[in-house]
């Protein structure tokens, strides 16, 4: 994988910057856990490639509307603190545009090799290898086995 954001994605630089900022505001890096931020170039590229154009356009429009209401300017013109204020607003939002974006970022973040590795998960498809699941504590069933049938008996 390269560190470049795909140039053929149908999004302009301002949109990409907005997406990167909001994604990292949601999931920043945590060096102590070896977790990258959601605007890591590889993850951001995945986000931009996976996104349906209409969905990203919707979140960008939503954030810009919010920026106008809260700050009186476009997102692009806001300073760092103002952008953080916007991010706080978004974090509490239940708007469909925001929910859709959160889902997109989470999907792309939690399939990244480095993220999965840091969580102690194998970076692979479930099939064909599958997984082991322990049989479990079957002796717990003994008390239930001693119980009398308790379904209602019905006359024909």
């Amino acid at each position, binding site marked *: 994988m390269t560190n470049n954001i795909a140039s053929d994605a149908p999004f302009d630089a301002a949109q990409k910057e907005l997406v990167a900022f909001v994604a990292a505001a949601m999931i920043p890096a945590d060096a102590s856990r070896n977790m990258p931020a959601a605007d890591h170039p590889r993850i951001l590229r995945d986000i931009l490639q996976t996104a349906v154009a209409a969905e990203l356009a919707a979140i960008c429009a939503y954030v810009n509307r919010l920026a106008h209401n809260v700050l009186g300017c476009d997102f692009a013109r806001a300073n760092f603190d103002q952008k953080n204020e916007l991010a706080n607003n978004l*974090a509490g939002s239940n708007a469909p545009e925001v929910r859709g974006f959160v889902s997109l970022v989470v999907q792309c973040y*939690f399939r990244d090799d480095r993220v999965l590795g840091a969580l102690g998960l194998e970076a692979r498809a479930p099939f064909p*290898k599958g997984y082991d699941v322990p049989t479990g*504590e079957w002796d717990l*069933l003994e008390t239930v086995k001693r119980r009398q049938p*308790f*379904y209602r008996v019905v006359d024909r």
Partner: protein
Amino acid sequence: MSQQPVDVLIIGAGASGAVAAWNLVETRMRIVCLEQGDWVNPSDYPSTGQDWEARSWGEYSVSPNRRGRATDYPVNDTDSPIAVSNFNGVGGGTILYNGHFPRFHPSDFRVKTLDGVADDWPIDYATLAPFYAQNDQMMGIAGLAGDPANPPHFDNDVLMPPLPLGKSASAMARGFNAQGWHWWPSDAAIATQEHDGRAPCINLGACLSGCAQGAKASTDITYWPHAMRQGVELRTRCRVREITLDDAGMANGVWYYDQDGAEQFQQAAVVILATNGVGTPRLMLNSKSERFPNGLANSSGLVGKNLMFHPYAMIRGVFPEALDGHRGPGACIWSQEFYETDLSRGFVRGFTFEMNRGMGPAATAMLGLGHGRIPWGEDFHRMYARLHERVTGMVAICEDLPELHNTVTLDDTLVDSHGIPAPKISYTLSDNSRKMLDYAMARAAEALRAGGATDIMSEAPLGVGGWHLMGTARMGVDPAKSVVNEWGRAHDVKNLFVIDGSIFVTSAGVNPTRTIQALALYITDCMKKRLANLFD
């Protein structure tokens, strides 16, 4: 264009359509099934990729509106707190189902007599018992005999060993034991050893988006290969628009759109509807004629009425130690402690708890974000770590009683890609259901805490949970109060049969597919026995 006439035309290749095709094939009649969807290639299932969670929310979403495949039809469910879930393709809903495979209880067929609500069924548990057994053999069931909540129902040669409890179900079992409540390994339509050419479960954990291993019993890999080997013709990408009548009021065929979008007429001597509790009323209501201006076989006015969903509560607990995460099938154990009516609980009828094991990392993050347990920003990772692989829980499947005002009608404006009106759902949650959901959430929280959970997250009704579609062409002996008779034949049209979830009189408090399939076997068996005078 017109096709060669056939003896039996089945519409829909899902759970019930597959059963009908297989059970009728020995009659040597010419049988054709028209299915609007495709065959699904197991190597296409999400669990074959590292992006399996994302794909299960997109092209394999349980919601037809979200999937939006050419083979789907849109559903207007804005007037319902519960949205329709389905899959349109060979296998129908069984492609995405979880494989929880409970039977109805004997009391479920006698609701009016026992509890004074809704109606009794025109058939009983004993009538269906041999067909349940036959279906168990075909689908392949894992489980354990001896469940005190159910009548004995297993031959040893039918049953495969139960699914593993793992750490999740063990934790929940401890909680249920501490409360003194029933639990038992679930009957699951998932092979735990080789069965009928299918490989055993390897704990992929993505059952709800199709089983790449072929362990889960979807009908594309159970009934259909047998039916087709014996001569049934299954035509995919064929969407039926309407069923037509001859001058004598008998169904004489259907108009459908083939894979190229061309309109075709298929003549048939018998028509069987297997298009589920939403697709069937949709098709019947769209089949208007002079004789039936309000929809085919609808003299009772009940086509599309009495829609039942099973309102679901989802209750999850966070445990201090790591459990199974997304590994292992969702199906594991159930509890029917609260299944039969006990009016002291404040509601009539009851529910089943089905434990659902855990979830993948993306779903865990969405759960935490959605329930305010994971914040945006600095603390994201610390709070995520508290949930990672530590969440397990259950759903409560609440019996939904039939109510006339819960309906499937035809939408005035929304249409599918062929211009056929889409179904519109109007549904309100009853007071009885609300009380049952609240009660179930409270009991589940107690059990989870008793098992060691330190935090509980609940949701009810589950908005995406309209996956059990029942009641919209109910069976009964009285033509004024039902759409089909006690063996699935339309009261008004003597060569039209309905075999899917539409014919349920009540919904019981369990997943419906084992009963849908037993009914489809029973009805097609009745047809075989009456072949000489089927239309009398």
